[in-house]
């Protein structure tokens, strides 16, 4: 059962992630009074990209390895997750820190790939990405630490359940902070600054094409789904029933709803500048710290 949980985790995420992008595109299109592409379009996009010739534009092995590393690290993080409250087989030999390591490794490999490409736009994008990671990874960590404080353990199951056990002031404050930060985690407006198409042409990914780019796209989709899942399992965990199938279904519906929210916010905001966003992130970070502080006091 526990081994099966790993497989189910991976399949659930791998199959659903592009669909969620389709939902995002459809909602955005509706807000923009367009028909929008069909919901299955991201699958076709990925397939098409995967079918193309693999170019190593930078002529550097790191450039080629970065997308693989990014996908692998995100998939590793996903394999650990207690999906539907079921502790995975790998959870024995891992904890919260492992999860954060893997996520940081994913962000780091994007940076490395961007820097290896040697493109000036990619390096601008990489520096922006780096600043975002520095400012926002702590917010994610704080959220989980709040769970640690509540649960008194670093185990993934107890942490995710712990976040919503005591719904006091710290819970709501952290939820608000996480919701805003989510927009940056999934890199949608107003915080899609590292990719900013019209400014720096998709930043870190500018030199990537074909299968390499497909891997990055997939990574991005998985990451988006991961962060949304974390919100659902963490903050809304108390709503989820014990039955595994029912729990999965409700989770999926909630993640979908979250994606609708993300798309609506994304479609109704311009992109911030990096200096404006940094101020914003700074406030978020302080609030997250405050929430943890409150959590420690038991509020």
């Amino acid at each position: 059962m526990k081994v099966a949980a790993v497989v189910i985790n991976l399949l659930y995420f791998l199959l659903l992630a592009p669909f969620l992008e389709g939902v995002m595109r459809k909602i955005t299109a509706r807000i923009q009074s367009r028909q929008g592409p069909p919901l299955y379009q991201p699958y076709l996009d990925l397939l098409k990209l995967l079918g193309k010739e693999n170019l190593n534009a930078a002529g550097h092995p790191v450039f080629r390895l970065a997308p693989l590393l990014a996908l692998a690290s995100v998939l590793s993080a996903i394999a650990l997750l207690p999906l539907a409250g079921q502790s995975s087989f790998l959870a024995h030999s891992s904890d919260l820190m492992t999860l954060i390591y893997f996520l940081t490794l994913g962000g780091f490999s994007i940076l490395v790939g961007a820097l290896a490409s040697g493109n000036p736009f990619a390096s601008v994008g990489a520096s922006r990405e780096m600043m975002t990671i520095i400012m926002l990874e702590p917010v994610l960590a704080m959220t989980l630490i709040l769970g640690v404080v509540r649960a008194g353990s670093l185990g993934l199951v107890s942490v995710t359940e712990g976040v919503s056990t005591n719904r006091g002031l710290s819970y709501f404050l952290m939820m608000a902070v996480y919701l805003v930060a989510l927009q940056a985690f999934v890199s949608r407006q107003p915080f899609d600054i590292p990719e900013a198409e019209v400014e720096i042409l998709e930043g870190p990914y500018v030199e990537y094409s074909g299968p390499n780019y497909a891997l990055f796209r997939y990574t991005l989709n998985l990451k988006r789904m991961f962060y949304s899942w974390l919100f659902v399992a963490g903050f809304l965990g108390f709503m989820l029933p014990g039955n595994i199938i029912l729990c999965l279904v409700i989770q999926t519906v909630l993640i979908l709803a979250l994606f609708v929210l993300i798309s609506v916010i994304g479609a109704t905001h311009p992109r911030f500048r990096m200096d404006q966003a940094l101020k914003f992130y700074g406030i978020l970070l302080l609030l997250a710290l405050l929430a943890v502080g409150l959590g420690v006091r038991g509020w």
Partner: protein
Amino acid sequence: MWLWNKIKQLAISFKAGVVTLRYPFEPRPAPEGFRGQPLWDHAKCIGCAGCASHCPARTIFLRDICQELRILLYDSSRCTYCGRCADLCPEKAITMSDRFELATDNRQDITQTIELFMMTCQRCGRCYDLEIKNYIDRLSALGYRYDCLEARKVIRRSTAEFSPDELEKTVTYERPGRLEK
């Protein structure tokens, strides 16, 4: 304040609904007076070359193949669809149709060629349109007699009587390169 503003923005969007069309699947006919692909009417054209000399894009060509045969070639690839040719045609032989889906991978699809049979003016020696509008009569007219239609070859010069030499020339005649595609 911020939220209210965003709700207003969403309201604008949803009030408009979906405005894009499922275009290639649902045709959208062009409105009246649309200037699409110009079409030449063989029967009306008198070969005056008014269109050719006024085309701003210089996309209509006239070539006199021989004394009796004038070829009008319209090369749509450079056409700007200004409709100047249709305005100026004295016989209203050109109409601006409502066709606009003209993308093709073969240039010949949108190229129009008219072969006009011209009479020679006895005074100035230049050609003018044959007044016979009946196609069967045209076939028997001077200048048409030796043409090899299958090979789209035409004689250079007409004679009053049948001459085997001219027929020979017709068969071996090569068109000028510019008209060949």
